[in-house]
């Protein structure tokens, strides 16, 4: 089995928002809709305060509350873990949006473009009226993944098969890959580093990991030797 996950290395993210821009360019999301966002957070108490940039979006949960509540079955989960929305089924009730603990879902009722009524070239190319009045969110660029896999490419390794936000990251903070493959880039990163997931206590089993420190040396060495 495959489970596509994303990793954000919080030590590396510089908050440049290039991933946000790349996502918006690729998916032509309307103003104020950011499928990939980067939060600017202050952590700690004075004088021990840190500024942390935190990429967020749909976490592609293994147990997605948005899917369970969806009355129309528009929200589903693929066998590779990607949570999808069928725009032809969705009624735009926004129940999924209030069920999502990550504020990852949006609903836009009217066409809206970056510079007013006329779409830019990339917006015109991707604009899909089916996305109006329904829930939308990050797709993990599933179209790129599927097309890449069909060509024999490896998502997370080959850019053509990798989500746009990951490709664009200037700091190498974002990673994508198959967590079920023990030799994948993401499996190695998770083994070599301390990590957490957002709001894990809610039991949604998110597919988005945050790296925050190197793993303890002993565990790291054990991971490297494959024991």
């Amino acid at each position, binding site marked *: 089995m495959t489970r596509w996950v994303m990793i954000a290395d919080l030590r590396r993210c510089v908050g440049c928002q290039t991933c946000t821009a790349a996502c918006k360019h690729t998916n032509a999301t309307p103003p104020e809709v950011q499928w990939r966002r980067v939060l600017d957070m202050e952590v700690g108490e004075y004088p021990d305060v840190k500024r942390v940039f935190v990429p967020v979006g749909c976490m592609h949960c293994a147990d997605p509350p948005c899917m369970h*509540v969806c009355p129309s*079955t528009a929200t589903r989960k693929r066998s590779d873990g990607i949570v999808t929305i069928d725009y032809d089924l969705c009624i735009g009730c926004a129940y999924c949006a209030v069920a999502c603990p990550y504020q990852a879902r949006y609903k836009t009722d009217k066409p809206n473009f970056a510079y007013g009524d006329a779409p830019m070239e990339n917006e015109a190319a991707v604009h899909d009226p089916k996305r109006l009045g329904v829930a939308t969110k990050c797709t993990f660029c599933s179209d790129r993944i599927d097309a890449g896999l069909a060509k024999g490419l490896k998502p997370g390794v080959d850019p053509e098969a990798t989500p746009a936000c990951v490709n664009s990251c200037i700091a190498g903070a974002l990673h994508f890959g198959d967590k079920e493959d023990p030799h994948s880039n993401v499996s190695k990163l998770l083994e070599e580093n301390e990590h*957490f997931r957002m*709001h894990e206590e809610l039991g949604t089993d998110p597919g988005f990991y945050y790296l925050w420190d190197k793993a303890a040396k002993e565990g790291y060495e054990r991971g490297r030797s494959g024991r």
Partner: protein
Amino acid sequence: MSYGPKPWVQLHWDARAALNFIFGGAGSGLILFAAFAPFTQRLNQAAFLVGLALIGAGLLSVWMEIGRKLRAVHVFFNPFTSWMTRESFVALVLFVAGLSAIWTGLPQLAALAALAALGFIYCQGRILRASKGIPAWREPTVTWLVFWTAVAEGAGLFLVFAVLAGTRVPALAVASLALAVVARGIAWSGYRRRVEAQLAPKARAALEPAGKQLYQLGAVVPLALLLTGEATDIFASGAALLLAGAAALAAGWRFKFVLVVRASFNQGFALPRVPARGGK
């Protein structure tokens, strides 16, 4: 402590969604009590009609909020896990049974409608509980809070209806209102105790006054009026019952509006760990 974007009020469900909980709860509650009231058939039919009209108005209101109105029938597609689908199916049963009861006057159909009304308000409670993104909703005890609020509203509305119709108010209905407002107060107390620590300060600030009103306007005032009504003449008693019912109804409606629209803060984002930057 982490200071990212603070929790903010969800804007996906506004007053239109709240009206489904407000009208749906009160309408279902009214049907529940009207089904077993010793009314004349005509009066019973009228009470059922008012109840169904309220539920219909609530559903119409929430229909106005959805993005793809012509696809509304898709709401029936997921009875396996979605409480919204289940609510829709129960509403269907409720309308068929309710209208049939009005048409035929059969008490069995009225009882079936009452059962569906109970199911409808239970589904509404579960709809909120399944919303994991909103701490004020996902607390499990919200189901029974919404349930008892609807029962108390129904009992209050029933008294208002009976007094306005000029019929004798059954003692059982008066006792039911007293019990329902007490049950609602207990449900609020239990819910508040469990949810308090999970709420953003602004959510707490929004919810607290509405909760207090469930005690004061929603329980103390109706109970005092019911006792006053017992001790006075028929005219004053009628006025007391009317006011008691209206107070129980108003407190419940206000609370549900606040719960759905004003206290529905998300939980924002939090980091359990901070990045360890720099080498040693």
